[in-house]
């Protein structure tokens, strides 16, 4: 009896709820993220941060759909296609793995949907019309290093980097930045592979060239081995590491050998230590407080900060776009993309973004922070 009395009421309630969602038209954010597979270490903190996203962004209700790409480009593209065709999303965020983010850019461009890539996806010119990146470009980070080197009076640099795209990008961007700023010259460039067991020969050749400073381009725990090799060969100058090495793995693996190293990093992970003059200080601090309140002290992480920044950007862009069309329509999506280029200088937890028609990397030169390893911990220079 009771059951039958309730059924019609529930049905009516359901119908009202359905009508309500259609009327208000939530902004739908589709996230394609590497929650499993080799890049899951990067994707999981982003998933954590997404759970902390507000219900309303830019004054509109938002609905988030998160799909796992398993760090597999094929799966990433399938998911992105599903998001644009079945779920009719207004914006795609992801992926955090560069090889997955690149093909998703194709889906985004084809369907006319804004993509906020959480990976430094390098695309051929003209193909990133719909794609905006959240991580810093190597050029911006190279700028920070060159500035610091000039301040330290470094005139010559030895380069020891990966033989892959990351090493190549750094070599080119560092050269270009240094030339533009009249900075130090690269006097020797040597390469190695992530899987190498020894870089003694490369270190020997670099130390023989006797540069003022050494720039090591490697990532994660792999950055310690070349560093120690250079130190072992008796190099006494300054040693610089890139932002891919800006994790505690450098100290965990390198121990005392990496003491005194300079590492370039985004500001988000060192919020407390930032000088008051750094524009990102309050935003970085807000991110760190929010993330660590939810997931425990010391768990902050540069990738979660990218997800935090997505909200800041959309918060500015959605109010502009909503004037041109309703969420879920083609007009709104196009307006949202255009809005990204119009929002201008935006302070996020990872620095200062200023997207323009020609620059979808966005970060300005105020972004990079140089950290020094002192007593096994980071210290902002």
């Amino acid at each position, binding site marked *: 009896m009771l059951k039958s009395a309730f059924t019609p009421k529930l049905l009516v309630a359901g119908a009202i709820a359905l009508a309500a969602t259609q009327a208000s038209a939530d902004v739908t954010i589709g996230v394609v993220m590497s929650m499993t597979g080799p890049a899951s270490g990067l994707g999981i903190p982003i998933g954590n941060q997404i759970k902390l996203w507000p219900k309303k962004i830019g004054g509109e209700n938002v609905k988030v759909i998160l799909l796992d790409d398993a760090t597999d480009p094929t799966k990433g593209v399938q998911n992105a296609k599903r998001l644009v065709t079945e779920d009719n999303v207004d914006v795609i965020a992801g992926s955090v793995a560069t090889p997955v983010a690149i093909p998703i850019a194709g889906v985004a461009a084809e369907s006319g949907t804004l993509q906020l890539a959480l990976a430094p996806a390098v695309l051929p010119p003209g193909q990133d019309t719909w794609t905006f990146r959240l991580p810093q470009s190597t050029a911006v980070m190279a700028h920070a290093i060159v500035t610091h080197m000039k301040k330290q009076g470094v005139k010559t640099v030895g380069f020891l980097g990966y033989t892959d795209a990351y090493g190549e990008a750094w070599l080119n961007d560092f050269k270009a930045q240094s030339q533009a700023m009249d900075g130090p010259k690269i006097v020797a460039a040597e390469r190695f592979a992530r899987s190498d067991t020894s870089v003694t020969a490369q270190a*020997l050749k670099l130390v023989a060239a006797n540069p003022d400073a050494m720039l090591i381009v490697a990532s994660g725990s792999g950055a310690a081995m070349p560093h120690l090799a250079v130190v072992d060969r008796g190099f006494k100058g300054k040693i610089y590491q890139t932002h891919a090495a800006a994790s505690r793995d450098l100290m965990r693996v390198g121990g005392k050998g990496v003491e005194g190293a300079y590492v370039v990093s985004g500001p988000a992970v060192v919020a407390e230590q930032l000088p008051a003059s750094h524009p990102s200080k309050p935003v970085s601090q807000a991110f760190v407080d929010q993330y660590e309140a939810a997931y425990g002290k010391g768990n902050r992480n540069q990738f979660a900060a990218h997800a935090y920044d997505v909200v800041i950007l959309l918060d500015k862009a959605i109010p502009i776009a909503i004037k041109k069309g309703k969420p879920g329509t083609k007009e709104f999506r196009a307006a949202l993309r255009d809005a990204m280029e119009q929002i201008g200088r935006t302070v996020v937890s990872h620095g200062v973004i200023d997207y323009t028609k020609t620059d979808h990397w966005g970060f300005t030169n105020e972004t990079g922070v140089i950290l020094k390893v002192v007593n096994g911990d980071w210290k902002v220079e």
Partner: protein
Amino acid sequence: MDFSIAGILALDGVTNGAVYALLALATVLLFTVTRVIFIPQGEFVAFGALTLASLQAGKVPGTVSFLVGLAVLAAAGDFVHGLRTKRSARSAVLHAVRILAFPVAVSLVAIWVAPRGYPLWVHALLTLALVTPFGSLIYRVAYESLADASVLVLLIVSVGVHFALTGLGLYFFGAEGFRNPPFWDERFTVGPLALSGQTIIVFVASNLLIVVLWLYFGRTIWGKALRATAVNRTGARLMGISSSVAGRLSFTMAAFVGALSGLLIGPTTTVFYDSGFLIGLKGFVAAVFAGLSSYPLALVGATLVGLLESFGSFWASAFKEVIVFASILPVLLWRSLRDPHGEEH
């Protein structure tokens, strides 16, 4: 390039070569006894180094659950096989228990030892005890039932085993790299050369092992049995040497050699779950120098690979791997011209 640079490069090359030599010896041993071209030889290196790193960090290494899982799989396979071949249930259970006994015992010891912070050499011995049983278990699970298949089939199985071990390695050890503390943190200066204690340990350990292997094959009955199997499987079986036992024994030795190489190389570089493959592949190149048949030639080949690598990195670091792996081409050409013979199968 002056004399001192050449000296440092040569030292670096010969040190790495000593580790490659161990892996090359294991590869030659496995191929001659079981005709398996064992691509995952390098995986034991990574497992050894990572197990020691976990123990050093006071954690129970991922190897423990991996080993027990593999042992249960092997025991279950043996049990089913036993019942199928009309063994009595009691004897089938006994066989399975015998397979499980050592891995489980070692794992329990590891769980007990891990948080207690014993000295490095205890951890090193425990690491060897944990990784060595992998050899015979992998042989049981992957190769034993295929022992009479062609070299090509066995090679394909090896590729599969390699991918399985790398994937499982990621699962059990995680994606992070580790570097072990040196066994002997001492430095000696000989002219322009700076010898570290670890370098000396690498030399002593690898040369000692080569001598021990030589004595083993020349003087012991089991060593002679393995040699007999290597020369002629059917003949050896007619003489009462079980080819299964020979296979398991040689795989156990290969796993031991791999784990030991891992301990030797762990303090000089950062080891990841997948680092073993390239190290093993260089051992394989050295084994090819020896035509997969001669131990002394494998030693020469490994030293050459080490030197080539070290001087190659000095002259053209971007092309180092190309130089090392391309060097196999003239060797193959020379071997096939000198010793032309068709595929036996």
